[in-house]
């Protein structure tokens, strides 16, 4: 593990921000607490996706499959078989991990290019949604209703808005820390070489199948866990929301806007886009139908055009050049170029 990881772990700014956020439920009115919770969910989802899609450069559109498995399977196990949702969460995560491994293997075996990989993962996600909708035991098209959240921790219930908010905060921080860890471990180096040039990666000893699979399994399992918590938050488990590829598109959009492959990039994207989307819907949703989508789309296009590599890298280079110019500013007197 490279020391950068521990630098963040020891950083008072990092923990200070988390503690500040954790105080959210005490000060935020419920509508804003809802937006904050949703933002945390998407920070977690986009950061998990980033392991495969950003660091590893494999544009997976299969992730709704893992969210859906985490949400629907654990809920169905509880409602149909009475299996504790904690155990259901673990089972769903294992199933998601297995599906991730199978997808990686198919990708490797048939040497899929980037486009075929994206399309095939999308096809898997579509199939997943259809299977859920067509299977009565999984709630079918009408979905599943979880029992009311009475705050019984042992039953995967976290109580009021505050409890589930803290769960989502933990998951969001966890997902970011996993990204940081991956980037500072050999796995991150391997994934980045695979992303940039597979043949050249192999030529310096990188095992393509192994590393892509590990990334996919980590990402799928964590995404599935987030899916279970998301289901608990929503109480109504709607397959058209939680198992739909539209969800993946949102995740990919957030990660891309924030900055692919960076530990904090997807988080930045979520912090910008989720509140924006929610507030626009709140303010404009009642007026002209579709207007809020239009404004949201315009903002996304503007941000992507202005910072094609994502907001975070753009901010970082802006900061670096500002620091650089501050330094040269400070040096100026000693240079004392005549006539300058």
């Amino acid at each position, binding site marked *: 593990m490279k020391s950068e990881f521990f630098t963040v772990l020891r950083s008072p700014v990092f923990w200070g921000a988390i503690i500040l956020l954790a105080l959210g439920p005490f000060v935020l009115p419920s509508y804003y607490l809802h937006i904050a919770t949703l933002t945390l969910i998407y920070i977690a989802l986009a950061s998990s996706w980033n392991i495969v899609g950003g660091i590893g450069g494999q544009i997976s559109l299969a992730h709704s499959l893992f969210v859906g498995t985490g949400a629907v399977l654990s809920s169905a196990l509880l409602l149909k078989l009475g299996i504790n949702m904690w155990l259901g969460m673990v089972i769903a995560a294992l199933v998601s991990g297995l599906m991730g491994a199978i997808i990686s293997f198919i990708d490797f075996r048939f040497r899929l290019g980037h486009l075929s990989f994206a399309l095939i993962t999308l096809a898997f996600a579509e199939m997943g949604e259809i299977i859920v909708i067509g299977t009565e035991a999984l709630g079918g098209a009408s979905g599943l209703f979880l029992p009311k959240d009475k705050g019984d921790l042992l039953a995967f219930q976290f109580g009021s808005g505050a409890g589930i908010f803290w769960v989502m905060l933990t998951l969001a921080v966890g997902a970011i820390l996993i990204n940081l860890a991956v980037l500072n471990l050999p796995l991150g180096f391997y994934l980045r070489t695979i992303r940039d040039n597979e043949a050249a*990666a*192999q030529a310096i000893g990188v095992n393509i199948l192994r590393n892509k699979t590990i990334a996919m399994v980590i990402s799928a399992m964590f995404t599935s866990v987030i899916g279970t918590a998301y289901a608990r938050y929503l109480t109504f488990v709607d397959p058209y929301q939680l198992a739909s590829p539209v969800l993946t598109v949102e995740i990919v959009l957030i990660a891309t806007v924030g900055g692919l492959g960076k530990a904090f990039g997807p988080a930045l994207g979520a912090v910008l886009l989720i509140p924006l989307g929610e507030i626009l819907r709140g303010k404009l949703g009642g007026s002209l139908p579709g207007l809020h989508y239009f404004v949201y789309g315009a903002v996304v296009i503007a941000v992507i055009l202005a910072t094609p590599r994502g907001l975070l890298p753009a901010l970082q280079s802006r900061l670096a050049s500002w620091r650089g110019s501050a330094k040269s500013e400070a040096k100026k007197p000693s240079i004392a170029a005549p006539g300058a």
Partner: protein
Amino acid sequence: MAILQIAGLTKCFGGLTAVNDVSFSVEEGEILGIIGPNGAGKTTLFSLISSFLKPTSGDVIYLGESIVGVPPHVLVQRGLVRSFQIVQTFADMDVLDVVTTAALSRRPMLEAEDYAGDVIRRVGLGGKERLTPTSLSLQDKKLLEVAKCVATEPRLILLDEVMAGLTLAETEAPLAVIRELNRQGVTVVMVEHVMPVIMRAATRIVVINFGEKIAEDTPATIVEDQRVIDAYFGELVDA
């Protein structure tokens, strides 16, 4: 002992036979030069040895075992590494990160980064650790090709025209690295068009023309060989 034996190696691309029944051995500890006109099949031969291509027929024996069908990354673990004639870059990774990844094939994370720093300085890329491919010259990228290979700590290294495009003076740094590696026991097979370099560096030379081996001898004898002069030096003089 022969570290590498090539036996009747053939590669066809459709109707074109790029490598045709080539056999030779590489002795442990030598520097073997491979020369031949453009399109002779030298790069294809390297791709066959390093398992990036599957031979149509024939065998490649490394350390006494056939390695046909063994994936390239496994060969790197076993100490066989190749460079690419057409430099292969990683768009979003800086020099240090790329060489560190190569070093990770034998060392743990923290050690790998230090060792990569060493290798980068040795090949003459010191000070350019944090540059990405967009700000590297072609020469620097060639040196990076060498650094990547060296950082995997190979037993046998296949270098494909790593000096092409360098001035004779610029070849000194990579050549010194190759010689130093060789002194430490690393076997080197190098394809090179820069004649003064290969004549000085190689202990033995294999000449390839139209996919076939036409000669194999010491540099001094090779330059006298009539077939070689016709096939190769003739072409160079004409060109």
